């Protein structure tokens, strides 16, 4: 395919993966196959939503991150922190404690990403006023943007072309430091990310549009470091409170939660979270069954970013804490003082290009060939049993049929077809075992009492 491949941040640790079907079943784009007893992810189909990682019984998925020491490549080290980070700490731990520990860990500045929300909201409203196709879709969640690119390519035009608060905050903070006389190469801006999609979004930006960020730090990693830091100095008097940071108001605190954006857009606005719900709704939008909605806030995670794959805290508790905080700071509105002079500077830089459609569904670029392939798939489906058991290493019978047609699997990968072939003496029993081993790994059918749930589990 002509498209540049997606970078994706979710990886399989082959030493941990023992080859089961959980991830393959939950993957919303059907991007996972089992080969040689390990999960393998199809790069161009993966949208980095993190469902696989959430479903893995042995935690074999990991999310690539930059080495923490990379921050020391820079003299000025800025951490961009989203509100959900704060929401994970018990409420007796204050924001300033968290931020001061972050400074002790090596950051020279901490900035909360949602401070730029009001500017972003203005830009979104402006685009919404001029839009022809409805509903407009928020560009906030990078996993949703990718989902639309691969699965709903006809809707890419409806994605609002305004960058996320993180990128806007990075642009602002860099400019602010530059204006203070700091050379660009001394400024390192790092985002503390709740999700893999954001990492992938940063790394796969096309080369002529350099990311305003220098790196990403996984939220679970930093959370552990910060929590550890707070615990260890508890009781000690030598606190370094650092400069007091401006507080976020209720709109900003809630922005990354479900129904964070929708109340601030015009017309009929809906907020939908969890990727399967999002897919379901987009199917209807694409069929034009839904035409009288103006704006869609779509988030890949259940409970939006509070349910991000790198968020350690329970998502419902995180939401509860943030909502309480929002109520506490109900009188805070608008952007912080230091951001005000940069409002127009930012406004002029918030627009991003329409994401390119990259359909994963096309059987072949050539329609005649595509039709032939579809006919083959339908014919194969006459023979496959329709059990969708995934024992072939594909998530369901139809995926196997497509894989066969695309020459990535064989009909004999289906264990039921194997039985039939054995019965008709077309396949030797030993050969059948070899086929299974090719999918599920060598010696997979041997007795093993150390596997999960078995007699000597874990030994």
């Amino acid at each position: 395919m002509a498209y540049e491949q997606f970078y994706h941040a979710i990886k399989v640790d082959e030493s941990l993966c023992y080859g089961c079907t959980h991830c393959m079943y939950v993957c919303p784009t059907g991007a996972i196959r089992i080969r040689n007893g390990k999960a393998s992810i199809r790069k161009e189909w993966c949208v980095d939503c993190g469902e696989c990682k959430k479903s893995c019984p042995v935690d074999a998925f990991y999310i690539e991150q930059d080495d923490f020491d990379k921050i020391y490549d820079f003299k000025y080290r800025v951490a961009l922190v989203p509100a959900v980070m704060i929401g994970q700490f018990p409420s007796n731990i204050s924001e300033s404690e968290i931020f001061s520990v972050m400074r002790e860990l090596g950051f020279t500045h901490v900035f909360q990403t949602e401070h730029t929300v009001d500017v972003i909201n203005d830009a979104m409203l402006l685009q919404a006023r001029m839009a022809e196709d409805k509903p407009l879709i928020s560009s906030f969640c990078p996993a949703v943007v990718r989902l639309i690119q691969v699965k709903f390519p006809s809707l890419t035009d409806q994605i609002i072309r305004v960058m996320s608060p993180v990128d806007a905050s990075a642009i602002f903070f860099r400019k602010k430091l530059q204006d203070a006389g700091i050379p660009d190469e001394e400024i390192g801006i790092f985002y503390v990310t709740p999700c893999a999609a954001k990492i992938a979004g940063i790394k796969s930006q096309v080369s002529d549009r350099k990311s305003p960020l220098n790196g990403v730090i996984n939220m679970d990693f930093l959370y552990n470091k910060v929590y550890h830091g707070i615990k260890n100095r508890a009781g000690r008097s030598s606190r370094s409170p650092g400069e007091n940071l401006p507080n976020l108001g209720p709109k900003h605190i809630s922005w990354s939660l479900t129904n964070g954006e929708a109340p601030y857009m015009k017309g009929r606005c809906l907020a939908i979270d969890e990727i399967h719900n999002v897919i379901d709704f987009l199917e209807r939008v694409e069929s034009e069954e839904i035409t009288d909605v103006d704006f869609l806030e779509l988030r890949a995670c259940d409970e939006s970013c509070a349910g991000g794959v790198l968020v350690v805290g329970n998502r419902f508790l995180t939401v509860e804490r943030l909502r309480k905080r929002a109520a506490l700071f109900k009188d805070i509105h608008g952007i912080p003082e230091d951001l005000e002079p940069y409002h127009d500077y930012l406004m002029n830089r918030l627009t991003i290009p329409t994401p390119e459609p990259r359909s994963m569904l096309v059987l072949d670029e050539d329609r005649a060939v595509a039709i032939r392939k579809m006919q083959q798939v339908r014919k194969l489906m006459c023979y496959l049993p329709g059990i969708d058991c995934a024992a072939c290493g594909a998530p369901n019978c139809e995926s196997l049929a497509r894989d066969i047609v695309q020459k990535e699997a064989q009909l004999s990968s289906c264990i039921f077809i194997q039985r039939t072939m054995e019965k008709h003496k077309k396949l030797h029993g030993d050969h059948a075992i070899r086929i299974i081993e090719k999918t599920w790994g060598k010696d997979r059918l041997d007795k093993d009492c150390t596997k999960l749930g078995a007699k000597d589990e874990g030994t």
Partner: protein
Amino acid sequence: MGAMEFRYEVEGGNFSKAGHASSAVKKILKQLNVDARIIKRVVVALYEGEVNVVAHAHKGHILVNINEDEIGISIIDQGPGIPDIDLAMQEGFSTASAAVREMGFGAGMGLPNMKKNTDNFEIESQVGVGTTVRMTTRLS
């Protein structure tokens, strides 16, 4: 190279299932690398046709024929039929019941939209027997 045939059943009165044929066809056309705008037109026309069977007839079925160049769709129903087709084709004409309007249908735009979104549109109807709509759209 041959053509592909697909068949879908439509149940009168069941609005929750209206749209299943059009989303299935949408899925097929996406796999065949058909331009998104053309898919949209086909899907809109088919969806309106499905809804008409659900809203106005007792039951029906849809036959879809796809080859390299075009998609042909026949929507065949058993139902009351349409006494005056020219009138039914007018924008805004509707006999939809209050209950149907309640659900957001009944603007009298379905048939005109089907005609507008297809390259070829034919409708036949026999009162007391049923209605057949045939539409074709070129795929490139």
